[in-house]
């Protein structure tokens, strides 16, 4: 059998297999979506843009809002940078201690404390 015939055969077989595999994938996706559908999940829980939308800033145009946003972003960035699933860096231990001490003080004084 020469190479041309062979290549035609490969084409027929290959495209057939590609379509076959893709059809199975379709089936798999339909089944997977059905089996794992969660009715109670609101639409916005689908991974949405994490960043605050810049459009909001320009629309509002108020300086105060911009400043508030900057604060929020700076805070969120700070939180982000200290978040990781492995053992936390040394400072975390110290600050946990400090937090503990302060919690004790504030609970004695009955202060409000967020978190």
């Amino acid at each position, binding site marked *: 059998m020469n190479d041309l015939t062979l290549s035609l055969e490969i084409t027929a077989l290959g495209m057939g297999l*590609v379509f076959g595999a893709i059809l199975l994938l379709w089936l798999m996706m339909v089944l997977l979506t059905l089996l794992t559908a969660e009715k109670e999940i609101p639409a916005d829980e689908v*991974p949405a843009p994490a960043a605050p939308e810049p459009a909001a800033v320009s629309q509002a145009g108020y300086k105060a809002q911009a400043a508030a946003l900057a604060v929020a972003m700076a805070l969120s960035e700070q939180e982000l940078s200290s978040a990781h*699933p492995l053992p936390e860096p040394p400072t975390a231990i110290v600050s946990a201690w400090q937090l503990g001490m302060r919690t004790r003080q504030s609970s004695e004084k009955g202060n409000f404390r967020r978190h």
Partner: protein
Amino acid sequence: MDLGELLPDLIKGFTHFTFGNAVMIFAALVLIYLGVFKEIEPVLLVPIGFGCLLANIPLAGMTASEGMMGVLYDAGIKTELFPLLIFVGVGAMIDFSPLLAQPRMVLLGAAGQFGIFGTLILAVLLGFPLNQAASIGVIGAIDGPTSIFVATKLAPELLAPIAVAAYSYMSLIPIIQPPLMRLLTTKKERLIRMEYAPKPISKKTLILFPVVLTLVVGLLVPEATPLISMLMLGNLLKMSGVVDRLSKAAENEIINIATLFLGLAIGSTMNAVSFLNIDTGKIMVLGLFAFVLDTVAGLLFGKLMCFVSGGKINPLIGAAGISAFPMAGRLAAKTANDEDPDNFILMHAMGANTAGQLGSVIAGGILLSVVSKMLGIV
């Protein structure tokens, strides 16, 4: 030691310089120019171009097996580590929810692989042996790592021209596709608006998808396992949301370093002797043909789906099924938007585009499987 004896040594760089080196250095400069000034896939064309430059400086010894480029080639291309690591990073950047919300779009990912086989036939007709023809065909996967992975297995001697063709044309897609889109679709078809009322895709679905897909494709096409599994590993790391450290590493450090080294190593195989021949020219032409054929097949299948659905599907999204993620998807949406500024088909096009990414990997695995079997390599 007298000066007459020394002179040949002083100008050895020039005396060993061949016309072929000059041509290849010109090619390297063109690649760097395209990357830097035309911004055509700069993360790959700049390192490839620079690697090519190094390969054509005589006696520099960087491409010998103990030179730096040789070390990188052995560590990451021969072992296929670099394309697979790049896929881990790419996987962490893909969102499959548009596809999962409209599963029928997956068919377009099959249609967009015709170019692979059409090019294979043409390559055979042009006299390439089967293993080389198949490797050239995979340029039609329109997916860099897949092309490199298959070529490394079947015809490593053609790796450089195949990689260059794959990446150069991929960045020319904004030039190649639009004329074909306008040629093969009517204005009425391009104006078709598509509803997008996706069912919400749960986080659980998005997490299970990469795992189940790896299993299904792995069992169906074992040869596609390395590629599909690394793509899905990256996707799982990202979607699980619990291993931020790892998915960030995949999206950044791992893919960046692998991309730089891959580009350099591939470029460094572009020496004059092995690159400057008629085969390279043929491959460049065949590569262009593969891109055109893929786009045409995708568009025609899009038209078929349009017809079958009673005109509810805009055939432009067929062109997004070729892979070339994510450019092809954006381009299809842009073309529809240019025709009618109120027509938004981006989500449908991205669904077809991610399907094309999957289809390309699967087709690459199938080709590898069938051709290995026929050549008795296995």
